[in-house]
């Protein structure tokens, strides 16, 4: 099958949706002739022109909020943040407006907007360019939050996000942009809110998302050589959370390790642990374990960064601990 990079798959999703629906417009910093900081919007300006691919000033609250105003008046904007760290500047617009408007106004309007934003570390970008704020947005009712791990998922999920009538925050991992993977020529969509079992196994369930899926897969491969069969569940969407797939897997393996790149407290991994503790306690033969970042900002030094962020060996060790 044809192979595309994660960035190319995302770009193809945008192109297909823009061809399909003239209401889909793209804006953000450097998304025009520049093609986006990570190349995702490359070629879109040339094909769709300055009325549908719009370069914005560095005004995150301004242009994310403008996305909301456009979404409630008939467009389907896909807004790009160059780094997701700056989502804090736009967070009032997302949390107090995009997320709540439909509810607060009794369902009289909808907000079909996608906010794309690159997350993640392992690039020595230090504390302002390495963060992953997905847990904050999964906490807020009214938003959907997506973090694809493969080119195939990236394309299918982005197309669904664009067609969704709700505000969707679509986090893309910087380490994944250049990763290649199979992407069929024919059109497909992947529903939001469905996890994917990326590897089947009967001994331990590892729940992961975004870049951590690749680390979990590598750890699982290594452990298979030692006779340990790991099941890797890729959440793909953290809000809505696919509780059924998680519980089904834990019912089979009776052991759970949750892997998450960012800080542990009040996070997606906390939520997954809570779901399994509340609804799948009887399945468990061992305590739930989490592999996460240390609870510190991301340091610049590669040595320190690697120490702070989860590594394949941390996952391997956690799986063995769960089996001990």
């Amino acid at each position: 099958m044809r192979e595309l990079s994660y960035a190319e798959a995302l770009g193809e999703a945008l192109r297909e949706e823009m061809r399909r629906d003239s209401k889909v417009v793209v804006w953000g910093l450097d998304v025009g002739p520049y093609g986006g900081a990570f190349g995702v919007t490359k070629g879109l300006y040339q094909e769709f022109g300055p009325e549908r691919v719009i370069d914005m000033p560095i005004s995150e609250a301004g242009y994310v909020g403008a996305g909301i105003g456009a979404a409630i008046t008939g467009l389907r904007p896909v807004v790009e943040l160059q780094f997701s760290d700056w989502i804090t500047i736009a967070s009032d617009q997302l949390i107090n407006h995009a997320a709540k408007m439909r509810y607060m106004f009794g369902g009289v309007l909808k907000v079909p907007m996608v906010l794309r934003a690159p997350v993640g570390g392992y690039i020595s970008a230090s504390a302002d360019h390495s963060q992953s704020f997905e847990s904050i947005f999964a906490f807020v009712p009214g938003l959907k939050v997506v973090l694809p791990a493969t080119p195939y998922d990236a394309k299918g999920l982005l197309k669904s996000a664009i067609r969704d009538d709700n505000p969707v925050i679509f986090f893309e991992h910087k380490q994944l942009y250049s990763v290649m993977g199979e992407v069929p020529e024919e059109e497909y969509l992947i529903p939001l809110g469905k996890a994917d079992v990326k590897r089947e196994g009967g001994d331990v369930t590892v729940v992961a998302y975004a870049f951590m899926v690749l680390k979990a897969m590598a750890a699982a491969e290594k452990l298979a050589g030692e006779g340990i069969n790991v099941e890797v569940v890729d959440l793909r969407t953290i809000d809505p959370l696919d509780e059924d797939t998680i519980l089904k897997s834990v019912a089979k393996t009776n052991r759970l390790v949750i892997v998450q790149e960012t800080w542990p407290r009040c996070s997606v991994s906390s939520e997954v642990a809570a779901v399994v503790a509340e609804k799948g306690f009887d399945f468990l033969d061992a305590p739930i374990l989490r592999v996460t970042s240390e609870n510190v900002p991301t340091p610049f030094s590669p040595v320190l960064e690697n120490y702070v962020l989860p590594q394949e060996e941390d996952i391997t060790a956690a799986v063995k601990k769960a089996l001990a």
Partner: protein
Amino acid sequence: MDIPRDILLLMYERMLKIRHFETKVMELFATGDMPGFVHLYLGEEAVAVGTCAALNDDDYITSTHRGHGHIIAKGGDMKRMMAELYGKATGYNKGKGGSMHIAAPQLGILGADGIVGGGIPIATGAGLSSKLQKTGRVTVCFFGDGASNQGTFHEAINIASAFSLPVVYVCENNLYGVGTRQGDVRKVEDIADRAVGYAIPGVVVDGNDVLAVYEAVSKAVERARAGEGPTLIECKTYRWRVHFEGEPDTYRDPQEVEDWRAKEPLRRFKSKLLEEGILTEEEVQAIEERVVEELAEAVRFAYESPDPDLTEALTDVYAEQLLPNLCEGGSHS
């Protein structure tokens, strides 16, 4: 400016409606009968009415925490507003928004907002949307003097200016942001001067003169519709009441309140209409009776309307939607 009589009458009636509605809300709130808290528009009626009278029905507005006047000025139904203020199922937003959050897209009302300055980027996006979709619709963004110190104001106006968006930014300068005199926390005297930084027209208007507001906004709307971009209009006005009902007025000089009450926008407009023979005393009386009756009906409607069903608490978080059949599990290995 030659303003058609029907528009003058509409303006008068809507100002009167706001005056009566807000006075009634003040009374009802004081009895402890109305939930939440309310920010009254008394004294500022000319701003909302003069502005909305210059708009088409399908033009957009965004509103603020002090929004009742905007909703009435844009054609809102007092029954559904009062029901919303009482948290009733028949309110504009099923009682889920309340006083500070009324939206009615069918009237071009994109929503009132409890976050100061929060609506400014949203109005700007509605403007961008109109421009890209070539609908010819203009958006008016209402906000206060306090909001003009938020980053959203500057970010959004810069965007509107850069892309020549059809947006009119109407600043209701009532001198106070909650309990702080905004002149003490801002160096420029006129907020309209800030337009210079964005290369757009900045206009100062007597916000208690409904005709002056109408004239300034009409010009700005014309400019916006012609594709020439946004305008910042600062309406100098005053809120007769405190920031929210029940707050002690410890921060305003009573003389200042008196001075501003003397600049009464409604009486001023009525005198003018009578003097120029546009209205007779009998017509004034008839309009007043109609508004009073309509308001009494609105209160009755709100009282008699049912509370929302408890199941409503859990709806409208997400737009329900069925995706096409292309979505089948979505696993790929």
